[in-house]
């Protein structure tokens, strides 16, 4: 009986401690406004965001900000799940990050605050890059958190050893594709020191590769665009996947792996290897998102450089990023907008820019010498970063998130087709022509938001 009693006490204590944690709503005084800010990111980003939020509180004593941090999100699906739960139960936050691929859907269903009037009143339209603002049917509903794009890093030591001169950093005058491939062949060696093309070259025994490309949807676009191709038109209805230029672009990339053997085949999921391979002198070049600079900058004793992306037919660049929105359901639109403006100001979260994770969206940080120096002049950003990357934003096209069902088109159709090209199962011609037909018949081409 004693033990039973003990058990009941335990249960009672535990349930009551459960209730103690039940503080869904925080106490606020009459004048005080509380805003909930939702965001994701690595621990470093979390620290920087929290700092910026508390600086905001300090500058605005009547406003309290509750951070809602969503960690460990590999592909946005965790965020989407949480967001759906919040939306359905009417407990949305006030302001914060939003997944770009869901933006159109939620905007159309009127979940976001229209920003145009507020922007006009505060003169925001002019001072930010034109690509920053996200419009649906002429109304602005969100702003890109940062300007992020594709870059090509290289290992200085590897290039030196292979006798390659310093790569061009002017994005308009980069290597042509053929020049690029021949450089890669010089870098790639097997364990006996042979290069691709040599008689006794053993493709199964390569110790150093020329390049690695991150292989996921956003990373394909610059190559495809550079060759004059496209995936789906901005109207959301025309399919360009089987356009000869698109096919050629994908074949070029696949040939790097299967014909020239200058690129390793990577596992899907978390891509841990390329950056480490680069730092371990096992890779010459690495084409990835510019946010990996955060990682690179942290690696001690690693001498890396940045090169302009190779040009197939013309220079191309992509603009990707998370989105910042104000939710329409907020009870304090003015304060939420003030917080949004604060977080969009690079000077408030400068750490995230100096560390290389983000590039600013505010124009002055590109045109004004002093502002430019604030985030660009440090050890993290290698020489030539401005000409190769920052300037290339002039030709950057936004990631096509406004096309309806683009997620499913990639997920159910394109990803598999493209993978079959990488593993050499099908040629780009066959794979892309097949999938283009399937996409056309799929009923998913419903235009754009």
């Amino acid at each position, binding site marked *: 009986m004693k033990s039973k009693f003990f058990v009941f006490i335990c249960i009672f204590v535990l349930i009551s401690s459960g209730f103690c944690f039940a503080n869904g709503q925080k106490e606020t005084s009459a004048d005080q406004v509380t805003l909930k800010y939702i965001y994701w990111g690595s621990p470093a980003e979390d620290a920087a965001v929290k700092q910026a939020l508390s600086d905001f509180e300090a500058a605005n004593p009547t406003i309290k900000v509750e951070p809602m941090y969503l960690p*460990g999100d*590999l*592909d*946005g*699906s965790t965020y*989407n*799940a949480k967001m*759906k739960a919040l*939306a*359905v139960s009417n407990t949305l936050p006030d302001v914060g990050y939003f997944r770009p691929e*869901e933006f159109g*859907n*939620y905007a159309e*269903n009127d*979940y976001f605050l229209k920003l145009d009037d507020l922007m006009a009143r505060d003169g925001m339209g002019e001072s930010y890059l034109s690509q920053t603002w996200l419009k649906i049917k002429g109304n602005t509903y969100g702003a890109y958190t940062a300007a992020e794009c594709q870059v090509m890093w290289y290992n200085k030591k590897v290039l030196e050893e292979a006798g390659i001169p310093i790569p061009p950093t002017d994005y308009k005058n980069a290597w042509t594709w053929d020049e690029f491939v021949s450089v890669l062949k010089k870098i790639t060696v097997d364990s006996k020191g042979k290069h691709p093309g040599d008689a006794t070259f053993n493709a*199964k025994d390569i110790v150093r590769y020329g390049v690695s490309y991150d292989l996921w949807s956003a990373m394909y676009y610059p190559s495809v665009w550079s060759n004059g191709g496209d995936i789906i038109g901005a109207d959301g209805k025309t399919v360009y996947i089987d356009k000869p230029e698109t096919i050629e672009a994908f074949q070029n990339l696949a040939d790097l792996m299967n014909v020239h053997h200058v690129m*390793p*085949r*990577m*596992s*899907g*999921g*978390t891509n*841990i*290897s390329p950056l480490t*391979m680069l730092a371990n002198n*096992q890779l010459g070049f690495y084409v990835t998102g510019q946010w990996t600079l955060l990682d690179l900058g942290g690696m001690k004793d690693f001498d890396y450089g940045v090169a302009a992306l190779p040009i197939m037919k013309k220079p191309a660049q992509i603009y990707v990023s998370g989105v910042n929105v104000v939710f329409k359901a907020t009870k304090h639109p003015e304060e939420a907008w003030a917080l949004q403006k604060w977080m969009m100001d690079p000077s408030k979260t400068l750490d995230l820019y100096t560390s290389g994770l983000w590039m600013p969206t505010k124009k002055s940080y590109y045109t004004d010498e002093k502002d430019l120096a604030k985030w660009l002049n440090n050890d993290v950003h290698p020489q030539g970063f401005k000409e190769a990357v920052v300037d290339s934003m002039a030709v950057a096209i936004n990631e096509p998130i406004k096309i309806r*069902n683009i*997620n*499913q088109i990639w*997920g*159910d159709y394109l*990803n*598999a087709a493209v*993978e*079959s090209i*990488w*593993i050499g*199962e099908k040629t780009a011609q066959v794979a892309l022509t097949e999938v283009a037909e399937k996409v056309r018949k799929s009923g998913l081409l419903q235009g754009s938001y």
Partner: protein
Amino acid sequence: MAHSKLGFNEKRQTFWGWILISPLCLGLTLWVAFPMGLSFFTSLTKWDMLSKAQFVGFKNYISIFTEDELFLKSIRNTLYFTFLSVPLQMITALAGALLLNSQVKGKRVFRTIFYLPSLIPLVVSSVMWLWLFNNQYGLINYFLHSFGINRIQWIDSKEMVIPSLTIMNVWNIGNVIIIFLAGLQGIPNDLMEAVDIDGGTYWHKFRYVMLPLLSPIILYNMIVNMIKCLQLFVEPYIMTNGGPVNSSLSFVLHIYNNAFKYGKMGTANAMAWVLFILTMGISLLIFKTSTLWTYYEGDK
């Protein structure tokens, strides 16, 4: 029958029976009936959770069979994985439990070691195995290479990806071993001694004492593991994203994509119900055939 022996009349038994299982009934209503009901209702609609749901009847169910190629592919992949993993797991786990039950020194240490893999959060072990299976750097290929064997493309190849996931799964059988061990503890010593007295070997002990007495536990492990295998999700989600070319797209991963990436809650729920029916079908089959080979001491 036994009830008269137990001394309580039928009414009292019914009363106590329901009292004892009342948490189950409440639980079923609160945590199961409502979500399942909502899930079934959702499967009859087209709903992205943002706009109003549109009632479409059984259209979702039809379209997943007729229009969605990946649906059938995901079923095939999952069934392949299940029928490969479950027998392997059962045999390995039983063998392991028998070994761990024998008179060897350091049993406790060995048992803990065998159980360790199950303690690692699935997320972390997925990442670990990603590294183990890596083509260039993986530990496994590293060893193969040093013995002069060609590197194997584990999760990068369409053929090897499911077997690779099976290997991971078999490594993770600590749970199953523990349950078998608990079952082995329940086998009375005097029965084992009886076999010795009659001049039997270990094999006789196994065949005529251990197997029958363990049979309820074997049934349990088989069914539970089969259900777990049919619901394969975390490993392909983190390691391969269903690739290469959808050869590791599991059923639940496809459901998840539909629900949270494409916003097709109606379709996702319809698929979940198909999985439910499939699982139930296979379980019923196993249960029915189990009466032929299971033996319950406490059911006299």
